[in-house]
């Protein structure tokens, strides 16, 4: 992990005191501020920035944590350009938006390091809640429930908390140390339990929880990387993006980086996998996307981040076959074009690109088989858990859910917001 901190310098490093002072000086203290409106957890941004500027760093930290239990993680990993900073009024006059993420990090990092206690939860309800999954949604829900006086146990399949915020988010956005440090900080003041290495998988597991707890929150996120369903997909060195990134993040990559890498997909995960490969020494990294550059789901700034490391995007090409004996040697593509809004292959346009590693980044599967063990939970046609938007209650009244498992894969901050709402929903449900 130490190694990763050196290999991947942070793109949003911690501000120093002068930087924080001058940057916070710029905030206009807008009324009904657009930055706050753009934040899924509605952090009172002008307030915490003013608190930083006026020398009340602890108060700033409190303001943030009152709205967002993973304030520091979000500060570092949020796509702020698309959220708060993208909404900052300064952008309307071509002035650089306030560096809200970095200011937030300045305040929350200080709160964590100085071990501030902002909450003093009690066990006064006599009721207990089980949470499945210690990702951002689960942790956020746990904090909210502990603040309301519930006993909370989180069951986590892995040996570390924080879900994809630890195992998935690009290492140059947040270090593992930072991700884990915040969960420790929260555990310390909220006193929820995390039971690691415990996957809730079978019907029996589920029934046990149901008899021991008054309500259950599902923060299980998504599953493995999706398959593309083409020939040669199971060759060695044809890997799923989330699995590959997890190996990088947990420093368990067992072989040197291939020189030539092809990433299949056009979303943010594809960009992350490509960037990280390039930063780890791949000399030739191609992101191959079936549709046009304009149709790519990746945010512009994520594509930019990949491009500066030398990643090249190739558009309107679809993979047909992964080539090679046992080990990947290349990918056969066919060119595509859009005809009357429909994507079609151009006959006879096949060609081959060599490579030593193929990374599939065409999305993550839903956890449908796990959910099938719980009775009465309705899913939508894509496999997302259906919930009531305000209470996060599922069609089985004892179950609540939030995060990627519900929204199909969004950002950490959405999972945090939904986890908190879920906690509120459970509290309302159990205090009827």
């Amino acid at each position: 992990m130490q190694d990763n901190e050196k290999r991947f310098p942070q793109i949003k490093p911690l501000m120093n005191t002068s930087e924080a002072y001058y940057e916070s000086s710029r905030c206009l203290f807008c009324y009904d501020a657009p930055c706050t409106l753009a934040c899924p957890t509605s952090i009172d941004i002008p307030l915490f920035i003013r608190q930083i500027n006026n020398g009340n760093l602890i108060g700033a930290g409190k303001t943030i944590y009152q709205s967002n239990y993973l304030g520091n993680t979000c500060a570092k990993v949020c796509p702020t350009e698309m959220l708060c900073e993208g909404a900052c009024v300064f952008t309307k006059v071509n002035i650089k938006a306030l560096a809200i993420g970095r200011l937030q990090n300045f305040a929350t990092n200080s709160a964590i390091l100085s071990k501030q206690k902002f909450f003093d939860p009690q066990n006064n309800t006599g009721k207990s809640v089980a949470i499945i999954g210690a990702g951002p949604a689960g942790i956020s829900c746990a904090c909210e429930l502990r603040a309301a006086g519930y006993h909370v146990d989180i069951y986590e399949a892995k040996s570390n908390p924080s879900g994809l915020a630890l195992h998935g988010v690009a290492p140059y956005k947040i270090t593992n140390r930072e991700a884990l440090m915040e969960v420790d900080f929260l555990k310390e003041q909220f006193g929820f339990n995390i039971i690691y290495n415990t996957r809730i998988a079978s019907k029996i597991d589920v029934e046990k929880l149901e008899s021991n707890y008054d309500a259950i929150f599902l923060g299980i996120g998504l599953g493995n990387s999706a398959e593309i369903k083409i020939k040669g997909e199971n060759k060695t060195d044809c890997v799923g993006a989330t699995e590959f990134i997890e190996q990088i993040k947990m420093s368990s990559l067992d072989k040197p980086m291939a020189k030539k890498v092809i990433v299949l997909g056009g979303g943010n995960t594809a960009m992350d996998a490509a960037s990280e490969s390039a930063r780890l020494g791949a000399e030739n990294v191609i992101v191959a996307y079936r549709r046009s550059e304009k149709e790519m789901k990746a945010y512009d700034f994520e594509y930019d981040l990949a491009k500066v490391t030398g990643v090249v995007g190739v558009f309107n090409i679809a993979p047909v076959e992964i080539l090679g004996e046992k080990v990947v040697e290349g990918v056969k593509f066919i060119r595509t074009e859009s005809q009357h809004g429909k994507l079609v292959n151009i006959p006879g346009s096949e060609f081959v690109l060599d490579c030593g590693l193929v990374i599939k980044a065409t999305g993550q599967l839903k956890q449908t088989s796990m959910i099938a063990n719980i009775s009465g939970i309705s899913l939508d046609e894509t496999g997302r858990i259906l919930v009531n938007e305000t209470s996060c209650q599922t069609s089985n009244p004892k179950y609540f859910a939030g995060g990627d498992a519900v929204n199909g894969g969004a950002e950490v901050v959405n999972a945090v917001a939904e986890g908190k709402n879920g906690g509120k929903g459970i509290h309302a449900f159990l205090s009827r």
Partner: protein
Amino acid sequence: MANLKINFAGIQAPNPFWLASGPPTNSGYQIMKAFDQGWGGAVWKTLGVPVVNVSSRYGAINHRGNRVVGFNNIELITDRRLCDNLREMEEVKKHFPNHAVIASLMVQTKKEWQQIVHDVQNAGADGIELNFGCPHGMCERGMGSAVGQEPEVLETITRWVMEVATIPVIVKLTPNISDITEPAQAARRAGANAISLINTIQSLIGVDIDRFVTYPVVENSSSNGGYCGPAVKPIALNMVKNCAQHPLVQLPISGIGGIENWRDAVEFLLLGASSLQVCTAVMHYGFGIIRDMTSGLEQYMDSHGFETIDQFIGKALPNVKHWEDLNLKYRVIASIDEEKCIGCQLCYIACEDGAHQAIDLNDDKSMRVPKINEENCVGCNLCSLICPVENCITMVRKDDGNEHLTWRQRTEANDVPTTFDDALAGGNSHTVPAPLEALKK
């Protein structure tokens, strides 16, 4: 081309920018350097019986990222021997015969005053400034503002000086007094050639809230100081204007207080100053700011067709009137340029909470441009001052300019509110929401 030369009460200088008496004029070394960079004159750090200073000595107010918006000091007059200062003064005059070197003086007895006047005249000073302003330390010893606050004492001492002075004498006034024109008139009566103002304002710059002591801290204690810097300019402007308009003062004025750029300088000149003195801005940025000051002043004069500074000294004075002579029929209201608006809604909350509830928000929250309620806008300016976008809110004239009616005229016509519940109350013309509306939002 603009000519920046001035003749201030008989003192010649290549431009009106002088260093005010203070740390930048502690030594001949600094003054030579300043002249070399373009300053037109310098008022030497006040001479007298040398003092012993404390450390620390300064405090400052910062405002949202801007350092030293206001500045304060508890320093006394020169701590260097008179003989050293005089030798250096002679040397400066030798190298810069056309620049203004003014000796600032502060002593106690008549004998001391007359002696030191002789000494600085012999050293080649072009003028003398009597420091009757220092509001800390020296006043405890019966000097500085202790003199400036007593017009009669000021007059007596000035007369002692005038008896022996062969060069122009400027009396420097303290603002720590309710009517600045009283000491100004006393200076005039005593025969002084000019006045300069303002010296620093008695102040406590702030409190160390952990150590329970005001700044600047000397061990565990502190003392009141003198306030200056950009924040005091409005006070200085008003006092300069008061002296310039007063029929019994009629003396050239050297303007001082918060000047840090050519714009500040022009404002002082327009209100009647005919030379300018700068201290804090030099302590902040060094002598180099002079290039911006002179080039800005030249540019201003060229664009207005002024060839010499005399042509616009006091040009704003006739327009500074009594309130009762202002036109009550003149009416402006705020107008928002929707193209420029960035939707911060600061104007809304300022008018809503701090003024007249004359700005409305759109019911559709995604439309962030506020709307002026023209009925309720009283034309106070607040929103236009607060709006962060240049020229986004402007004040637009609504009356046709044909009517002119002042408070004085209305009073003469018995057309003014005179009882508590008078129907003529000005506020009757706009709607004030009922108190309980506040809790319904």
